[in-house]
């Protein structure tokens, strides 16, 4: 190898490290700025919108790990969200176990279930896989609906209690929820960031682009999918546990319906799948828009809010198929 190429290669490596460092700094700046938002926004309703935005960003980023990085389009993540919500609720309401622990239990259960289901579904391709995930989540919904131990159709009401960080119950104060949701997003983002540059991350992207070629290069395709599913399900469930604590009432429809599965995929898809910022960006646009159109247009019952929402999804999917993030990034060499 000539000295000239050696140094150019070294430069390429250094440039890469510099890029990674820059990403981290941008993230630090963005998250710090977001962390300051409650200082300026005292309105409870807007805080509520912010919390939901952060939560959806975090859960959609979790979905993104399996759907965006590993290319396995799941239309059934509501199942994991529901497991998280129910684990936290049942443990807290029936056994007085703090939701912090309940969320982790839900996460572990979900990850284990994701692996078990993966053995069944990861042989399937494309729409067959997507429909299998949808169908499994629907089965889960029906089972929870008819399972009296977890309240069946009646759901679970969290008891009123004093404000406490342990029980994650705050009567009026939204700020603690805000920081929890932000914290969850930061953790999921960091996990994605770290994995993105690890062997797993590379394997996932290879599996997404061409599983057969990946297999021939020593990529454990099946195990890669299982790992992505487990990580994805874990954080989705943690998000579900938080949601339960936040709303303090859950029933099957309100945490496990198909609508949620779509809502977790949408921000990532619209923002840019398989990217670090796609899901947060998508959530930052989609959630405030849906909340605000519903709040200020939905009261009329005319369906105008749905028309706007549907048109937006369609427009973004058609006009920016790589996701809205491509508006902000100068991708190396690409057309965008």
């Amino acid at each position, binding site marked *: 190898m000539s000295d000239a190429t050696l140094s150019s290669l070294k430069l390429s490596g250094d440039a890469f490290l510099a890029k990674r460092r820059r990403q981290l700094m941008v993230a630090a700046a963005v998250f710090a700025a977001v962390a300051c938002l409650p200082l300026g926004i005292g309105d409870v309703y807007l805080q509520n919108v912010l919390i939901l935005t952060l939560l959806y960003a975090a859960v959609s980023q979790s979905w993104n790990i399996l759907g965006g990085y590993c290319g396995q389009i799941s239309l059934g993540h509501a199942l994991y969200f529901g497991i998280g919500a129910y684990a936290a609720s049942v443990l807290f309401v029936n056994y007085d176990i703090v939701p912090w622990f309940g969320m982790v239990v839900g996460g572990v259960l979900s990850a284990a279930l994701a692996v078990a289901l993966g053995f069944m579904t990861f042989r399937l391709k494309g729409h*067959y896989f997507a429909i299998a995930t949808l169908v499994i989540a629907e089965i889960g919904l029906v089972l929870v609906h008819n399972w009296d131990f977890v309240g069946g159709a009646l759901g679970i009401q969290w008891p009123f209690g004093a404000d406490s960080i342990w029980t994650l119950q705050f009567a009026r104060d939204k700020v603690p929820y805000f920081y929890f949701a932000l914290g969850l997003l930061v953790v999921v983002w960091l996990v994605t960031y770290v994995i993105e540059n690890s062997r797993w991350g590379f394997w996932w992207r290879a599996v997404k682009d061409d599983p057969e070629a990946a297999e021939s290069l020593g990529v454990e395709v099946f195990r890669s999918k299982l790992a992505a599913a487990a990580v994805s399900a874990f954080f989705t469930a943690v998000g579900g546990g938080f949601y339960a604590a936040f709303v303090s009432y859950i029933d099957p429809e309100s945490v496990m319906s198909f609508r949620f599965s779509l809502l977790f995929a949408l921000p990532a898809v619209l923002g840019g799948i398989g990217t670090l910022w796609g899901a947060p960006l998508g959530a930052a646009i989609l959630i405030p828009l849906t909340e605000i159109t519903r709040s200020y247009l939905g009261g009329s019952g005319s*369906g105008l809010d749905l*028309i706007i929402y549907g*048109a937006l*999804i*369609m427009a973004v999917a058609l006009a920016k*198929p790589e996701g809205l993030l491509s508006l902000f990034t100068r991708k190396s060499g690409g057309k965008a």
Partner: protein
Amino acid sequence: MTAQALIQVLASGLLMGLIYALIAVGLSLIFGLMDVVNFAHGEFLMIAMYATFGLVLWTTLDPIVVAPLVVGLMFCVGAFVYVAVVRYAMRTKANAGMVQIFSTFGLAILIQGAAQYFFTPDYRSIKTSWLGGHTLDLAGIFLPWPQIYGGLISIAAFAALSLISRTDFGKALEATREDQGAVALVGIDRNKVFAIGWGLGAALVGLAGTVLAIFYYIHPQVGATFGTIAYVTVALGGFGSVFGALVAGIIVGLVEAITALILPPTMKAVGIFALYLAVVFFRPSGLFGKL
């Protein structure tokens, strides 16, 4: 439960299954043609049901009489959706699968919103029709005429489809799906074939809509109820397979009816879903899908 009741449940399931097949086949046809899953398929059904309802109200004719009109209208709706939306979704190179899913999903929400906007969320149903409320009593087995009509229409539609596949147009469809580049060389306009394909797919679900409108209620979310079943049916039969849609539709109808007998009826969808999982576990491309 007596044997008679069992036969009754199976007969009802069979008729419903034929209707499911008719709802699903358009979806499968479009997929077979261009590998696109239309997530607004249920909304097509809903439009057709509203159209039937509206025409019946306006012309005071029977749903059966206005059916050809609705089918023609739905053909235009399908072709228009292709030209106005799907054509663009097909052009994208990045995330092609996602773009198709979410552009048609966005369309579905938009159509639901529009239906609520124009028709209000109220429940409609066609009050009187020639067949509505009439039942064929076969030695204690009751077969409602609307469903018998639906089953017959479904069989006729599948027969017609198998005839179409032998015509020049059918061959053009087949050629387009086999090799999109080559057909351009022999002078087939790909976009035209796709538009017609979408028209045909929508017309078929439209036909199902005219049948359902006779005995089912109509409201902006009605598509969702049948949409999920249609997706599972198509996947169970194998995406792209017309014959698969027919067989899967019948199986879904029967399994649904039987599950409702064995398990609490609230869990009857579980039977269909579990069947789907079991089938694709052994045959990852459904019963008659191409690998």
